[in-house]
């Protein structure tokens, strides 16, 4: 608890407030117009998704190809609640209920499947996500089937998005620094060795999976509220792949990497809209080239923000004699 109010905490707080205020000003002066605002929202949602998947895949080493499934649960629960309660408390309730439902499904899915390793787990999670999507597709009376839910009340604005995105990043990076997070990392490094040291690997894997699912649910809820429309097709296999691409591109095990990759990809896709017909070709080519020349991702497993801030902090501190 001492550390909570230390210099690092103040630095984090200041940089968060600065980010928020600068973007808020850009929005109020209409430099970020409504088109760019939807890009901004997409980036925030992708950051939440990527950071939460990074906890599962990058830090705990459990290869999940079903993140879009949890996202869809959050999206549908939040949409159904806000359609009946189109108020701010309804929105808050919707996001929370979406996230909690996703987390519960995460436990249910995680308990049996997390015994599997590597590619088998990837395929099992892929299958789970597809089953979730097919269930939504077939619950016509509630989810309106393939036509999807439209006219979802829009409550998200920059403040909400920022609140949830920053909250996700802070909670997950603190989790990783805690003893539970260290246990997760030890499972990634060597599961058998971790077990031998007394780490209950199943418990930590399910914990990481559940936390990941919870935040994916939040991201889904924000998606529904931002873009007013959801249908099962949005949350298909390719969405899970998109999230995984952000995580691997940023670097497995690097939260700032996920953030940087989400922002970069968001900006790139916005500017490639002009070349819609070759957008995906360029995207796939750059994916191949980046993986061939930098397979560890942009950041590897290093973190960006901390080192820069501590270096900045170093220059302000009175110099102590170094050995």
């Amino acid at each position, binding site marked *: 608890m001492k550390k909570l109010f230390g210099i690092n905490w103040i630095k984090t707080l200041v940089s968060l407030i600065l980010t928020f205020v600068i973007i808020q000003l850009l929005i109020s002066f209409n430099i970020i117009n409504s088109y760019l605002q939807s890009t901004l929202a997409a980036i925030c949602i992708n950051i939440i998704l990527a950071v939460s998947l990074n906890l599962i895949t990058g830090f705990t080493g459990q290869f999940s190809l079903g993140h879009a499934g949890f996202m869809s649960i959050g999206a549908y629960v939040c949409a159904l609640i806000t359609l009946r309660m189109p108020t701010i408390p309804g929105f808050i309730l919707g996001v929370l209920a979406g996230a909690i439902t996703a987390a519960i499904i995460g436990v249910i899915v995680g308990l049996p499947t997390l015994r599997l390793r590597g590619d088998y787990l990837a395929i099992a999670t892929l299958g789970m996500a597809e089953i979730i999507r097919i269930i939504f597709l077939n619950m016509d009376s509630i989810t309106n089937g393939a036509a999807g839910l439209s006219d979802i009340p829009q409550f998200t604005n920059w403040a909400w998005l920022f609140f949830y995105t920053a909250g996700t990043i802070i909670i997950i990076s603190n989790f990783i620094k805690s003893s539970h997070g260290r246990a997760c990392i030890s499972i990634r490094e060597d599961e058998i060795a971790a077990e031998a040291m007394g780490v209950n690997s199943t418990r930590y894997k399910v914990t990481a999976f559940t936390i990941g699912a919870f935040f994916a649910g939040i991201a889904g809820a924000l998606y529904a509220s931002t873009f007013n429309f959801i249908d099962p097709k949005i949350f298909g296999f390719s969405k899970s*792949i998109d999230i995984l691409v952000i995580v691997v591109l940023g670097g497995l095990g690097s939260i700032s990497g996920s953030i940087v990759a989400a922002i970069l990809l968001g900006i790139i896709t916005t500017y490639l809209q002009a070349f819609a017909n070759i957008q995906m070709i360029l995207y*796939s080519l750059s994916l191949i080239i980046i993986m061939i020349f930098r*397979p560890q991702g942009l950041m590897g497993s290093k973190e960006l923000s901390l080192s820069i801030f501590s270096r900045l902090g170093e220059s302000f501190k009175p110099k102590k004699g170094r050995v």
Partner: protein
Amino acid sequence: MEQLFQQIINGISLGSIYALIALGYTMVYGIIKLINFAHSDIYMLGAFIGYFSMTTLKLGFVPSLLLSMVFCTITGVVIEKVAYKPLRHATRIAVLITAIGVSLFIEYTTMAIAGANVRSYPPLTGILTKSFLLGNINVSMQQVIILGITIILMILLQFIVKKTRIGKAMRAVSLDSDAAELMGINVNTTISFTFALGSALAGAAGILVGIYYNSINPLMGMLPGIKAFVAAVFGGIGIIPGAMIGGYFIGIVEVLVSGYSNSLYRDGVVFAILILVLIIKPTGLLGKNSREKV
């Protein structure tokens, strides 16, 4: 009862196609432990090459089949050389993302060249249009040809893997690539050959699906690709007979579910079976005890 047999006949045709695709997945996974997501797009390319050779070049069915198999073989080997070979020692997730990149590249390049719209195969001629009654069950000539070609290709594949030198090399590399290299086997050539075999089968599956379902589009590979992979996992990934059994099983289950219940649930049932298999016997039906992984 008649309806059941009719459905099973239809399921066998669909299953043949899944089995052909699944073979490519299982061989590549057996040899380099990669879920080759681009494989389903090779299958799509096979369908498109067949389409162009039947319409633009006005070739018959058999020359078109051979042409698309040759084209897919070349594409498969080129993909392996360009995209996967530089990553031989990278982490598996990096190779997987590359495979996804290749898959998207093929899909959207085809879309840019051929257009995103659905095309229908040219009407069949000659013997392909016929159908006959087996008891009270209607069997079309297409179904006979699909099953026949699949069986011929599978026998050929078994022959290559079991009886030839390169097949022996494939089995050796999949068992232990380092040891195989020390024994003087050229691992890179063997991996390329595996890609070539798998891609040829996928190309054949593509053109067969074209004549059977009559409609093709650049994104047609995605779902059959995943289901064929499910089939490979179901039978035990890395095991060739497993992929065949898995393919037929998935095909028949899918047709039965859409025949007797809501067809929207058929994919759900396939994935539910997958998860059950993975939880009960993660190594698949035929397990890993039989050491043939190619």
